[in-house]
């Protein structure tokens, strides 16, 4: 690698070479049977450089491919905007590696999945489940002409359980993910089964405003909009409604939101981001007051905010080496509140519990607008979940609705957004959300 970087340095003025080696093992159990073990052992190399006052980029998939420099130079002939600025700040801590996970073989992963299948069967042997395990080991390096030369190892494990309805469709869904080894608790498995059984009773709801509980998982759809609002790139472009709101109340005073790249065992934890900025925790909303935006090296000067370690090579739909670093969440975290989860439900006479939605990626996201089809949700009557709701949508604008947060649960769940996890949130009660039903 250093050979390639030495060659690059001779050809261009400033440069940064980023590499990522991913080693992934994934298995899935369908109808009680493991259908495949899918592995991935691939390398991506990404160059960002300046030559003659112009920035350029290119990627390659092996260290012998010296055309990466020529292609970056061609790219620089066209690319607009300022030169890349490279920095040299050494990352400190690492909260994203677990030796046990790193060493897991395909055999042990299969054993884990089979153990989970048996535990589920012991609770209820009539329900069909799909179970998937995905273990990723990554090795990331970064080297630049400012003298930065850093690396880290990262592990993570994602476990998903889906229960299947009588007609063969997904009825319930649960996903958990951390950068350390874990098992799903008995309580959670019991809850998955219980909710599946409740779902056998299909109910309709009327169109009206009512109390709505978003599960931690479903909060991802709303937090995708908040993430766009605190995204420094959107603030600079003038499309964030939060642009001049730092220090102002933008949400209920019980709401606290941060982005925490250092979260212990967090799925999105890392040592440094994909521009080499060390990971950090950034408090975004404190007691309902907007505190800070997320910033990258390119927005530092325009926002006057130091890079927050959120420049990542991913989008909602892809994590390819050629995706340019852009502001995204590491672990976006809604802080747990002080209401036990069961008490939140107990206090509701009539409302809905939204556990999974469709349409997270559609609509005017930066403006905070949402219109979500509830793919998994339940009717709450007299404090209890009484059936699965059919043909129901929730819609609104988070910049009105975040002020309607009345209670926040204690237990963190993974926020899942389109293809990838976004962070963690407990269940959140909103007291007056627009629900479109068919009753």
């Amino acid at each position, binding site marked *: 690698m250093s050979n390639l970087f030495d060659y690059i340095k001779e050809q261009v003025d400033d440069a940064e070479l980023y590499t990522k080696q991913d080693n992934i093992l994934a298995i899935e159990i369908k109808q009680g049977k493991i259908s495949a073990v899918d592995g991935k052992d691939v390398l991506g190399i990404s160059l960002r450089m300046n030559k003659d006052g112009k920035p350029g980029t290119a990627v390659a998939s092996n260290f012998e491919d010296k055309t990466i420099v020529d292609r970056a130079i061609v790219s620089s002939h066209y690319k607009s905007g300022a030169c890349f600025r490279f920095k040299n700040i050494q990352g400190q801590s690492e909260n994203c590696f677990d030796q046990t996970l790193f060493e897991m073989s395909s055999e042990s992963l299969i054993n884990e999945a089979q153990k989970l299948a048996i535990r589920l069967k012991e609770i209820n042997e009539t329900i069909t489940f799909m179970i998937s395990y995905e273990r990723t080991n990554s090795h990331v390096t970064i080297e630049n002409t400012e003298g930065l030369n850093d690396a880290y190892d990262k592990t993570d494990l994602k476990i998903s359980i889906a229960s299947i309805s009588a007609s063969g469709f997904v009825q319930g869904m649960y996903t958990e993910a951390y950068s350390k080894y874990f098992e799903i608790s008995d309580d959670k498995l019991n809850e998955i089964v219980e909710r599946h059984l409740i779902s056998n009773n299909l109910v309709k709801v009327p169109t009206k405003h009512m109390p709505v509980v978003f599960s931690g998982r479903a909060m991802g759809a709303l937090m995708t909009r908040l993430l766009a609002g605190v995204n420094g790139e959107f603030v600079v472009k003038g499309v964030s409604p939060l642009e001049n709101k730092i220090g102002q109340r933008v949400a209920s005073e019980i709401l606290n939101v941060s982005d925490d790249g250092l979260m212990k065992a967090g799925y999105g934890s890392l040592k440094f981001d994909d521009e080499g900025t060390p990971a950090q925790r950034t408090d975004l909303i404190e007691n309902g007051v907007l505190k800070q935006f997320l910033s990258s090296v390119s927005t530092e000067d325009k926002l006057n905010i130091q890079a927050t370690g959120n420049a990542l090579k991913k989008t909602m739909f892809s994590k390819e080496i*050629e995706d340019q670093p852009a502001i995204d969440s590491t672990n976006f975290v809604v802080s747990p509140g002080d209401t036990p989860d069961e008490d939140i439900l107990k206090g509701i006479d009539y409302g809905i519990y939204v556990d999974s939605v469709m349409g997270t990626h559609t609509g005017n996201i930066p403006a905070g607008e949402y219109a979500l089809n509830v793919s998994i949700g339940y009717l709450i009557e007299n404090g209890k979940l009484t059936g699965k709701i059919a043909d129901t949508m929730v819609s609104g604008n988070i910049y009105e609705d975040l002020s309607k947060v009345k209670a926040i649960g204690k237990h963190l769940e993974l926020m899942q957004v389109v293809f990838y996890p976004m962070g963690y949130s407990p269940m959140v009660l909103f007291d007056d959300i627009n629900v479109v039903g068919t009753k």
Partner: protein
Amino acid sequence: MFKELKEALSSEGYQDLRFENLKNLTIKVRNEEVKSVDIIEKSGGHARALVGGGFGTLSFNDIKDAKKSISECIAFSKNIPGEMKLKSVDPVQDDVILSIPLDPREITLDEKVNLMKHYGKLASEIDLLSICDIEYIELYKEKYYVNNEGTEIRQEQLSAAMNFRMTSKNDVLTQQTRLSLGGSLDFTDLKDKDQLVIDKAIQTVALLEAEPVVAGDYDVVLDPTVGGLFIHEAFGHLSEADNLLRSEALRKTMTLGSMFAGQDFNVIDDPTEAGHSGSYVYDDEGVKSRKVHLIKEGKLSGRMHSRLTAELTGEEVTGHFRAKNYAYTPIVRMGNIYIDTGDDTYEDIIASTKNGLYLFGTAGGQTSGDMFTFAVQGGYKIEDGKITSMVRDIILTGNLFTTLKNIDKLGDTRSMSKGGGCGKGGQILRTSCKGSPYIRIKNMSVGGK
């Protein structure tokens, strides 16, 4: 290349290898300014082995690792209890060479950039059209495929598309639309599209004056892009036979011969129809693609398969097993899916609609089992058989089975989407196309705000 790949295979169980050289070009232009040009070159392979109860698969970069990767796949596969069989197919040796009227790779970077700047200028000159983002995506793949049954295929794939995202803005409102051009391997399809670009820009600005739609049930007339997205999201994904693996119940729900729609209704997936983003010859298992009738005269009549799902269902292979690239294992994907034409003219469909909505332009969709949802860019009210005022902020939701039965008008000409794209199992596939004639659906649930 073939030699190295074949040497990595042994006769144990089933084994295959594919190796891909990717050369992609993306250009991003905003209005008249070039934002970025990226020339992406990557290569790598994907190995699979079936010796135990399921496949072991592994992606890798270096062709020298092919043999090692196959060994790992064998080890993975051996750990899987049970047994699994593939539909048997005859071995194939083929070399698929593209024949291209105007090869995008022979157009200079400057010419491409200038064409984009030209379109960007046309759009942004329309009053209140604030941003016209254009992305040019050229994908070239050279793929080698071998298996230990004697199949050896080299094939090239190429597509070039321009995707527009236009934003209009006044003091109170922002509206966004999308437009795609091309999607085929012929650069001609991207040239001389001035009028399409200008019309879309005018429409984007007109949406600023539109009323938000009032939520409720409507008879909706879908334009071919929306009709295509509807059939892709609502029905197409269910016809990907790998979905059947998850439960016996779904297999029952999807029993061939079941009545799904009215008697005039036909749905087809045809990767062999040339000139679209989802056209290809062989899938990533070396199976030649076939035209499949998914719904014939209202009855479920076929589905898209891999060799595994064909064996499990006792149906024929169709060649629909594809991966985004070498870093991914193939899954069953649509190629060119479409609703076939009927007898109704566009004029008749509108004239026979008393109180409804005409909807144009897709803005993303998603499906979860029998439920689907998708957003459209805008629409018009239809009152007493006439198109009247414009409406915006429209999201459609519904249940597949009731919605298919509510389709009561089918236009007499079909068009296929330009560009392309579909997400499934963590893989975005650009080479996926959808189409439809104008269709009418009775009693569709339309959400607004």
